[in-house]
């Protein structure tokens, strides 16, 4: 039986599907990844994390392949790339601090760290103070160079291991830079859907189809079901199902 492994940020997690929570069991079980799995009676693992960065996505995918992937099992990876200005930090193992989230196979010692993260989410004064310096960690060109490199790397790994996958953007498109333009050209756009087109990112795709977003720019369950149906069509065209 196929297992859908979805990795991404809050949009992949399913934040606000229940209308009130950034993270909950209900949300993570009703986001587009689980919805696609349920259409076929497949299993699913939802590794979407609210505040998750593209760095998180790259790490989580490799971590899954190294620790949980089984050669004899069939997988479909859904990689929902997120926006720029995000990275991750980590609470030391020796501390009691964790960043609570309901995603599957999540190391809750990791802390999503973005320019807009609320200080209230940080458990230590060091991490809270570091938020004031967050702009030093981010640069538009760096973020988009990294993003293209991560997508290219996962594309190569999936291809090498003969793993089915789809990539797409959830809330922003990749910017072409002078550094990454040839990397972007080498992305397989049969499997990475519209990497440069923001209108085709999940959030805007759904808005353009009349789905209403929440105040914090998340979609409800109906939009997730619609996105899963769209992904299902792509899967059929690729003979994934």
């Amino acid at each position, binding site marked *: 039986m196929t297992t859908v492994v979805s990795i991404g940020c809050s949009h992949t997690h399913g934040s606000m599907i229940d209308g009130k929570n950034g993270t909950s069991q209900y949300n993570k079980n009703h986001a587009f990844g689980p919805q696609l799995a349920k259409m076929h009676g497949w299993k699913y693992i939802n590794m979407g994390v609210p505040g998750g960065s593209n760095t998180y996505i790259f*790490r989580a995918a490799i971590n899954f392949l190294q620790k949980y992937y089984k050669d004899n099992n069939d997988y479909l990876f859904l990689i929902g790339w997120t926006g720029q200005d995000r990275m991750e930090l980590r609470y*030391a193992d020796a501390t009691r601090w964790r960043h609570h989230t309901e995603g599957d196979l999540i190391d809750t010692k990791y802390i999503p760290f973005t320019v807009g993260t609320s200080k209230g989410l940080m458990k230590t004064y*060091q991490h809270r103070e*570091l938020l004031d310096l967050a702009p*030093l960690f981010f640069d538009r060109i760096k973020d988009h160079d990294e993003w293209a490199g991560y997508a*290219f790397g996962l594309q190569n*790994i999936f*291809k090498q291991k003969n793993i089915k996958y789809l990539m797409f953007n959830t809330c922003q498109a990749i910017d072409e830079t002078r550094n*990454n333009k040839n990397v972007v050209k080498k992305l397989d756009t049969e499997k990475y859907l519209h990497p440069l087109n923001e209108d085709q990112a999940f959030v805007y795709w759904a808005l353009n189809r009349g789905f209403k977003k929440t105040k914090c720019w998340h979609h409800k369950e109906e939009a997730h079901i619609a996105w899963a149906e769209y992904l299902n069509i792509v899967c059929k065209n690729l003979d994934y199902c």
Partner: protein
Amino acid sequence: MTKLICLGDTKSKEVAYHFSLAVDALMVDLHYKDAGMQTIYRLFVKYLCDEILDKDTEDFIALIAVPTRLRLELRHDGDIHGYLDKNYFNYYPKFKEYPHLSYAKLKKYNAAIFEEKLVEERHSYFIYALSMVCVANNINYIMYNQSEPLSLNTTAPKNYYAPHKKDRTLDAMLDIEKTDLYYAGLLRDFYFDHCS
């Protein structure tokens, strides 16, 4: 003629030169000052996409000097400068050459920025990704440690010279007065025995 794509901190350039002679390859110098694994991965993917893919006529080998884990790649604002984009720099615990004074404020938070497992895992997944990209594109490669052994938690690919041995890093060898030429010879032997 085979091209040797050389990646790592500029301090590993001399070894790369001798290794290129040992394997009779033309050196492509992608070394970068204070490079961390993020830098190496970024530059390798860029060069691969710019210069290698779609060209079946040349052979390539990648020589990768894996640096310390304690590096975080950052970039200061500005136009892209040169093929390697010199606006990139690597921040590390004793870093002093701030492109802008505001970066000096980061020092107070080094414990958070370089949390042990955070940097260990980042190192590990870039090594894995780099090796897989090489394999997927039929590029022979060899990796070695410039200054510190890999953590025992990090699984090294088979083309990695002495991944967990403290006394087999480049810096450890230079400390006991072995030369870059000597070290390149060790890498050459390993390359012909395990990688080519």
